[in-house]
């Protein structure tokens, strides 16, 4: 039995679990991008062979890639995005970083969570030693399933305490970021290809965008026909789809309120205020208005606002504080 009645959460620990969750989510997203893109290239005619460049652009790290690898061939892009140890957002680096964070808080997370991250680490390091995977989709599937398993294990083996809510917070914010980036890059590339409008390739490309956030089936159920406007609405503003930006931010906001104990609709710190503003902006947004004002401009502003939320979380919870809040305890 523990002597202390409550267990306050160390700032360092909150920081570590938040980043652990972000890195796992990031690794899963990268694996999905590679997989969907690989699948897409199989469906497209040869003159679409530059399909690997956009996925590098999605990461926002085009410059690093060009400097190291030059041409965006499938082999180069997969090597870069999946295994490059020097690139901090490769699957390999994300899993190493998630594991380093997990290792520093092993006594906070459950043993099962640690073992799952550790087994992902053993999986990527073993694959890295062997070189590029022979069957790319199989490797991507392994990574994705391992990440899903981690989420399930986290859900069911760790108490839903403050640290757990920081995990949810990190995971949702990361996911919102990835969905918005994907939408930004793909929409920008897909829309001008007027010559393809109405051709099967157009459909294939928009479908691939939905698939890269596992949204194809759910979109179909809700909207049926493939239409760029509806896809934007679905990925940005849907209230039910778990990878829609609005859904992610709503869940992040919920987690934040549990952490602080502030009632919904009110705020007690900068992070809550910023995230609350963003949440209501999306709650009451209209897709036609967004599109007419320019989607790219909207997504750019959204990215900036999400970065501000992240900085506020750092300030409010992870940064070292000066004065005792509960002296004399």
């Amino acid at each position, binding site marked *: 039995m523990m002597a202390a009645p409550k267990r306050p959460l160390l700032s*360092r620990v909150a920081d570590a679990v938040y980043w652990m969750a972000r890195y796992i989510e990031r690794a899963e997203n990268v694996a999905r991008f590679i997989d969907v893109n690989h699948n897409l290239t199989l469906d497209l005619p040869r003159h679409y062979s530059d399909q690997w460049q956009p996925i590098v652009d999605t990461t926002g790290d085009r410059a690093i890639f060009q400097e190291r690898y030059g041409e965006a061939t499938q082999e180069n892009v997969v090597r870069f995005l999946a295994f490059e140890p020097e690139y901090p957002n490769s699957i390999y680096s994300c899993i190493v970083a998630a594991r380093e964070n997990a290792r520093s808080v092993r*006594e906070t997370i459950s043993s099962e969570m640690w073992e799952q991250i550790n087994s992902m680490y053993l999986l990527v390091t073993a694959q890295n030693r062997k070189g590029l995977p022979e069957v790319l989709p199989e490797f991507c599937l392994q990574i994705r399933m391992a990440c899903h398993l981690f989420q399930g294990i986290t859900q069911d083996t760790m108490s839903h305490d403050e640290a757990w809510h920081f995990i949810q917070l990190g995971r949702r914010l990361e996911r919102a970021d990835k969905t918005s980036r994907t939408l930004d890059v793909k929409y920008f590339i897909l829309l001008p290809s007027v010559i393809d409008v109405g051709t099967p390739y157009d459909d294939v490309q928009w479908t691939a965008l939905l698939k890269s956030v596992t949204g194809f089936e759910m979109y179909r159920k809700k909207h049926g026909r493939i239409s760029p406007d509806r896809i934007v609405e679905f990925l940005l503003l849907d209230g039910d789809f778990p990878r829609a930006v609005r859904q992610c931010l709503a869940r992040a906001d919920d987690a934040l309120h549990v952490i602080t104990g502030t009632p919904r609709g009110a705020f007690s710190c900068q992070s809550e205020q910023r995230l609350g503003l963003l949440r209501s902006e999306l709650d009451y947004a209209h897709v036609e208005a967004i599109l007419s004002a320019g989607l790219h401009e909207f997504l750019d502003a959204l990215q900036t606002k999400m970065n501000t939320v992240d900085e506020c979380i750092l300030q409010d919870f*992870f940064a070292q*504080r000066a004065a005792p*809040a*509960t002296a004399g*305890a």
Partner: protein
Amino acid sequence: MQIHTTGGSALRFSSYQTDGFYDEMFEADGSSRPHVRLLVEIIESLSDGALLRYKHAAETLLLQMGITFNVYGDSAGAERIFPFDLVPRIVPAAEWSIIESGLQQRIHALNAFIDDIYHEQKILKDGIIPSEVILSAASYRKQCQGLNPPWGVWCHITGTDLVRDRDGCYYVLEDNLRVPSGVSYVLENREVLKRIFPGVFEGLSVRPVNEYPSRLLEMLESLAPAGVAEPRVVLLTPGIYNSAYFEHSFLAQQMGVQLVEGRDLVVSSGDVFMRTTKGLERVHVIYRRVDDDFLDPEAFRPDSLLGVPGLLACYRAGRVALANAPGNGVADDKVIYAYVPEIIKYYEDRDAILPNVPTYLCWRDQDRAYVLDHLDRLVVKAANESGGYGMLVGPHSTATERAEFAGRIRANPRNYIAQPTLALSRAPTIVDDHFEGRHVDLRPYVLCGKEIYVLPGGLTRVAMRKGSLVVNSSQGGGSKDTWVLAPHPTELQSQSQIQAEPS
């Protein structure tokens, strides 16, 4: 690992050789010792290849669980599992009771000694130990002079290294009073073996080790400043790159206390706090796994980034407890080790139950001359090093290494001691597909608060390389589970007589 399923993997003891060493399981004539007979029977009755499969399964399990240690100076693949041998080392009850009372006596005396050194220094005034030996010890901390730790205890957690020589007699090799590690492997090894040899556990009464975390927590809580009803205990680690990090997080988890790094702690108006998401929270007891030097840059090494500025002042004022107490390493110095039999005699007025290994002190002219003449037969150790670093094993050394050590000894005689090369006892160990004898030591763990508790078990470290006498994990050592047998009901009476004998 390759597992052969042909006849060679049967792993039987029929061709096992003791080679003239004291063997933990077998007599010189090849018959098994009475207390291991059941274990031998069970191993011999396993199907061919079974033990190797278990070994493989255990290693995979350890890797998946991430139970690894870091090797300093090894950049790539810096994490390794601690090699683990499945054949346990068994200590009969009567032997254990001598070890237990010997350790209790030793820890009691060492605490009295350290308290004396940091107060009146009676033992120096009475001429038992020369003052300059103490004051020149690198681990003597003048900052600790006059400190009064709770219960007058300076060594709360100790991991004493014991070895047996060719005659089977136990000797204390090192006291390890500062931040001893390895106890997590004692607990983990036991978990693994319980799964593999349930039959032996049923047949023998092996004393459990899993109460250690509760005992440790209880002891730590007892150190809290007066008037604190619900003390907050934390475990202070140097961080994930420390070689014992796994153990730090394991113990924190097992005790349900928070694992903190130096940067998580802050001193404010005379108290120690940890930084949390909701502000600062007071800390009462720190189980520190950080060396003195890195505890508090204001008190010890000013260039350390790891420590908590102002910590020692809080400790001195009794606002926070530290275990182990800073400054206790003075009794861990290998030169001072040589005086422990006199220390026991001085404070306990009795002879030491567990003898020391005979030790030559190089600062004595006569001893140094002898050491320099016999480097090829002695083990030379630096006075203030541990973990198998800074050490020369004479019989296994080259002429160049001996010449280098001779130079170091002449340059700084105070810093070196030498001991005869002991023929450490051996225990059967799985090597590839058969058993071979490997040298072992034994590290029991002792907790000292209001009373002294010896964990019935310990870490048996194994020198995995053939013929090697170095058991440290950093030098390729492995471990075995250590089973202490409960006294047979009829033995209980004779037990207490053994303890009562002044030996």
